[in-house]
């Protein structure tokens, strides 16, 4: 038995070593398309909400598109969010990824070779919440208190910008790194003084377990965060046709998610991920679906990503500058918009966030 175990161990180690060194086998068609989602999926099978990517996943648009070719679609969820997706990308165990701006910048700074195809969820803010009976009234009062921030996700940079606008620094607080779910639990049990989180906080607020003291999405461009769909360079070079079809599907999903007539249906769909209809209503209260779910890579997006790269360098989150210009790959998006006649559907914004033309 020891011999068998030894040979199992040997083959395991060999397989691991090979996985690192041998590039992906090139086939005409991949057997499966692996899409990584930088969120902890809820439910069995897991699902999520809040962006056009979620719409695509829930409506199974990708599966339908590739069913005829016999290509399966695998959605991989990560409890560790953006940072964990980076690890999977480095491992080459994904083909596409839905990820936030900061984690992708961190990945690119460390040499991951990816291309941003389209945006999926822009102009999203962060929320600061405290326990209901807390003496903290605004962000300035958080000095010296225990705050949970999910490090390495796009929450972090916006949180840092909010703190800077209040003349604070991360060092003035006691920051604990907790993922979304742990942070909510810690807030409910009053284990922390404040939590920086997203739309999940509305549920706690409705249950009376938390009080939101600040929401950042309307305060200015540097207080918003974006998420995108990216593709690994290797997959892009091997199967550009598949990439184009995937982008087409995502643009269709974005279009469905931007139609105000679908607002009800959209929130109902996303509610399947465990975040209630009421929470989605509150989340999108002051923003139109079009502005949030636009897939365009316009000057605003480019400026935001450059700012994220600069801020990350300033905060020493990355050690060398990241070049954003060569990172976007808009031709798939342009092709898709053209072929679906959606060139004028979404508004383009300039670097300051004002509508263009």
């Amino acid at each position, binding site marked *: 038995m020891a011999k068998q175990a030894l040979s199992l161990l040997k083959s395991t180690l060999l397989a691991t070593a090979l996985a690192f060194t041998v590039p992906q086998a090139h086939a005409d068609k991949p057997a499966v398309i692996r899409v990584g989602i930088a969120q902890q999926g809820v439910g069995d099978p897991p699902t999520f909400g809040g962006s056009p990517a979620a719409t695509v996943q829930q409506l199974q648009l990708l599966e339908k598109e590739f069913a005829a070719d016999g290509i399966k679609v695998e959605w991989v969820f990560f409890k560790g969010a953006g940072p964990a997706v980076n690890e999977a990308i480095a491992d080459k165990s994904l083909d596409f990824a839905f990820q936030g701006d900061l984690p992708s910048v961190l990945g690119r700074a460390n040499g991951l070779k990816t291309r941003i195809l389209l945006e999926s969820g822009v102009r999203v803010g962060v929320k600061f919440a405290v326990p209901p009976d807390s003496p903290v009234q605004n962000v300035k009062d958080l000095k010296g208190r225990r705050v949970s921030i999910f490090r390495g996700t796009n929450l972090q940079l916006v949180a840092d910008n909010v703190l800077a606008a209040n003349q604070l620094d991360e060092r003035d607080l006691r920051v604990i790194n907790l993922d979304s779910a742990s942070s909510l639990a*810690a807030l409910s049990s009053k284990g922390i003084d404040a939590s920086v989180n997203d739309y999940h906080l509305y549920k706690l607020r409705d249950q009376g377990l938390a009080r939101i003291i600040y929401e950042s999405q309307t305060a200015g461009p540097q207080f918003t965060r974006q998420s995108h769909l990216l593709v690994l360079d290797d997959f892009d070079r091997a199967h550009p046709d598949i990439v184009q079809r995937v982008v087409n599907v995502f643009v269709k999903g974005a279009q469905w998610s931007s139609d105000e007539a679908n607002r009800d249906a959209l929130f109902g769909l996303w509610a399947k991920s465990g975040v209630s209809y009421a929470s989605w209503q509150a989340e999108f209260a002051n923003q139109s679906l079009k502005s949030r779910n636009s897939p365009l890579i316009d000057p605003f997006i480019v400026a935001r990503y450059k700012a994220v790269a600069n801020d990350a360098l300033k905060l020493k989150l990355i050690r060398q500058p990241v070049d954003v210009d060569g990172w976007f790959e808009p031709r798939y998006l342009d092709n898709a918009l053209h072929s679906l006649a959606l060139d004028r559907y979404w508004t383009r914004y300039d670097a300051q966030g004002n509508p263009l033309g």
Partner: protein
Amino acid sequence: MSKAIGEWSPAAGHAVARTAGETKAKVRARSTSNLQRHARALAWHLAPWLLPAALFALWSIGCERGWIAPQILPPPRMVFDTLCDLARSGDLAHHTFVSLQRVLLGFGAGTLAGLLIGAALGLSRTVESYVLPGFNALVQIPVLGWLPFLLLLVGVGEPLKYILIAHAALVPVTLSTMQGFRQTPAALDEVARVFGYGHWQRIAYVVLPAAVPTLATGVRLALTKAWLALVVVELVASSEGLGYLIVYGRQLFQLDLVMASVVIVGAIGFAINRLLDALEARLRRGQPSAFRE
């Protein structure tokens, strides 16, 4: 032989060998075996460094040749630079101090409590019969099993860490103290009876010294477990400390920071063990060796 031993020379050795009737060839064979012996001694001294050197070489070459992506395994140079950066910026000292403080305080509290409880269990059969079964049942739940329970109870602050570390230390110390107090060799007991020792004299002069080796092993195990518990709890929920550094590095996808922190954690664990080795050797020197093989 007119030469004194101190003035022995190879030539004289040859002369002696020849006079003793050995052939030239045999003499040559004997002196080359001297060289062999020196080479073997050198190899013996260097052998422990062979494996680490080979691994290090593999690591460096692997990174240089790009066998493994640098995000996954950063080159040694980068890890070293990160270590220096950490040391220079004072972060290393700060986080190490926080971790050490947590582990020492938790370990101290747990050991003290463990010694008291173990002594009570060991010395009194009544206490043992009331407390031990319940204690044994609680012991079946490993330290990590308590983590979510304590997370809910006390939240993610300092008390969580201290309670967990103290618990990790308390269990082995209690059990080995109890065992040490129970396993006084009967012969020593008989001698104490012959000398007419009272109850407390017996405990102080017979039971306690005989229990020291077992106690020492228990304390040693407790420190290892306390260090283990510290690393886990800092990985799960902490705002400072070495485990926090590891998490920070991982979240920011800076594997060199993670490796540097792992090196520090390993170094401290190593230092702790060496310290305990020395302490134990010190203690054992005063032990009577009659009952040890």
